[in-house]
């Protein structure tokens, strides 16, 4: 996770064993998928069995899904908002980015405070424990009414990202080695400086865990968030609409795209982490 490019190059260039292993697991998965689709259609090698066409609709061949992914970038299908996949991706990315930035800006200071001050913790803990277990999905109807169609989906994704970051930052801030704070004090640092130069850097690895988990949950929330028709589309909206109109290849295409986007944002999180570490070494 530390650096996606580095780990990618490790997996794909220098380490043939791991490359083979990754290829094996992917191949096994695609083979099973293919066998299942063929079985439902009584295609080769299952010519003898009774086909089940109603279920087969839901399980297209994977190459048809890949083709649908490609197609979704160039044709505007019916009933999915008439938008290209790239436009859906942009809409979702925008939503995730706004929610992510808001979650980061609120969860990091709150987490640092709650991790370092017993009073702040006593203030915040009951609310956190009350709201944390509620699935973001449960908020969809309320949020769409309160926040409307632009901010509503963002608010739902925000909740998904916010709590993992908050909880990890609290944990990190709480585990700062006290001797480091003592050392900083004898070097002339006061409260604010200690927060910036000791507590925050110490918490960064925890923060990165929170970001990675939070972004994953954020992508999970996006289908729910965009379900009721988000302005300007979105990959979640696309999946939902494709499902509603029984265009299952397109639905899977949307799912594949979400998976890839999640990998992308995790990679970006890795870059942020490296950048942060470099910055902390310097500043």
């Amino acid at each position, binding site marked *: 996770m530390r650096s996606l490019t580095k780990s990618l190059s490790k997996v794909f260039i220098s380490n043939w064993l791991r490359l083979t292993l990754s290829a094996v697991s992917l191949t096994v998965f695609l083979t099973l998928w293919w066998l299942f689709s063929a079985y439902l259609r009584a295609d080769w090698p299952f010519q003898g069995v009774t086909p089940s066409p109603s279920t087969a609709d839901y399980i297209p061949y994977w190459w048809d899904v890949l083709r649908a992914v490609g197609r979704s970038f160039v044709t505007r299908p019916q009933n999915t908002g008439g938008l290209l996949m790239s436009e859906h991706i942009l809409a979702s990315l925008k939503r995730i980015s706004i929610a992510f930035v808001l979650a980061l800006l609120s969860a990091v200071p709150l987490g640092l405070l709650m991790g370092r001050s017993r009073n702040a913790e006593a203030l915040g803990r009951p609310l956190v424990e009350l709201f944390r277990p509620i699935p973001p999905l449960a908020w969809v109807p309320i949020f769409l009414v309160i926040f409307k169609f632009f901010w509503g989906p963002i608010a739902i994704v925000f909740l998904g990202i916010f709590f993992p970051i908050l909880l990890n930052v609290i944990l990190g801030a709480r585990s700062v*080695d006290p001797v480091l704070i003592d*050392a900083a004090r004898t070097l002339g*640092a006061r409260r604010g400086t200690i927060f910036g130069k000791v507590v925050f850097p110490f918490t960064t690895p925890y923060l990165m865990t929170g970001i990675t988990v939070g972004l994953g949950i954020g992508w999970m929330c996006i289908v729910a968030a965009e379900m009721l028709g988000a302005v300007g589309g979105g990959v979640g909206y696309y999946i939902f609409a494709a499902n509603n109109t029984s265009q299952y290849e397109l639905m899977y295409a949307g799912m594949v795209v979400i998976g890839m986007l999640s990998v992308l944002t995790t990679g970006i999180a890795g870059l942020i982490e490296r950048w942060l570490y470099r910055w902390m*070494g310097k500043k």
Partner: protein
Amino acid sequence: MDGKEVVINITHLSKVFIRDRRRIIALDDFGLEVREGEFVCLLGPSGCGKTTVLRIVAGLEAKSGGSAKVEGKEVRDAGPDRGMVFQEFALFPWRTVRKNIEFGLEVKHVPETDRADVSKKLIEFVGLKGFEDAHPRELSGGMKQRVAIARALANDPKVLLMDEPFGSLDAQTRNLMQKELLRIWSARRKTVLFVTHSVEEAVYLADRIVVMTARPGKVREIIDVPLSRPRDRTSREFITIRSKVLGELEEEFEKARAGELSPE
């Protein structure tokens, strides 16, 4: 003792900790004067309050009574005029050697080029050339403690407080670091208050050795070490002083053990 200014002046110092609703009297009527440029070692049984004295002088711990003055001013808070070196090194693991050393200067908003000048000189001074950009995890214990000493020196503090800084080092490294510390001390003319468990270390380093009583800690005896440096650990004078300190200390160890056995 030649009419030099008193830098650390501790009188009637007491400290009471409260743990699980029980009062632990760590220090009771502890008094000590340390003069400019002096090297004083604190020695005493475990738990007698050595660290507590140091932390109060550093401003990391509030006292319960009495007075602790540094350069005539009552200690209220930690500050860069009193550098501290911890047994656990306490280096910032995410910072390189150079950036660890520059921490105090950053806090003071010293411009980057001046910071670099200071850290460059200090890195050479403590023998870490070539390791400027290493992180603490890449360093041996002795090297880590060199960084910690350089970091404390970067603020050019009047007083250096050291809490068993070489306690976790192996014997060889420890001896080497003692020599190095004396070199640094005489070159920089620091006033040093040094806590140790090792009688030999105290006799090797100190101008004066303060033997503390078992808890509650106060001064049992102050022993002068009038030997010229570098000291020979095998010389008769060295061994005589060592035996004397050891004798004092052993009685306190006995008391500490008796105290542990009897219910409080």
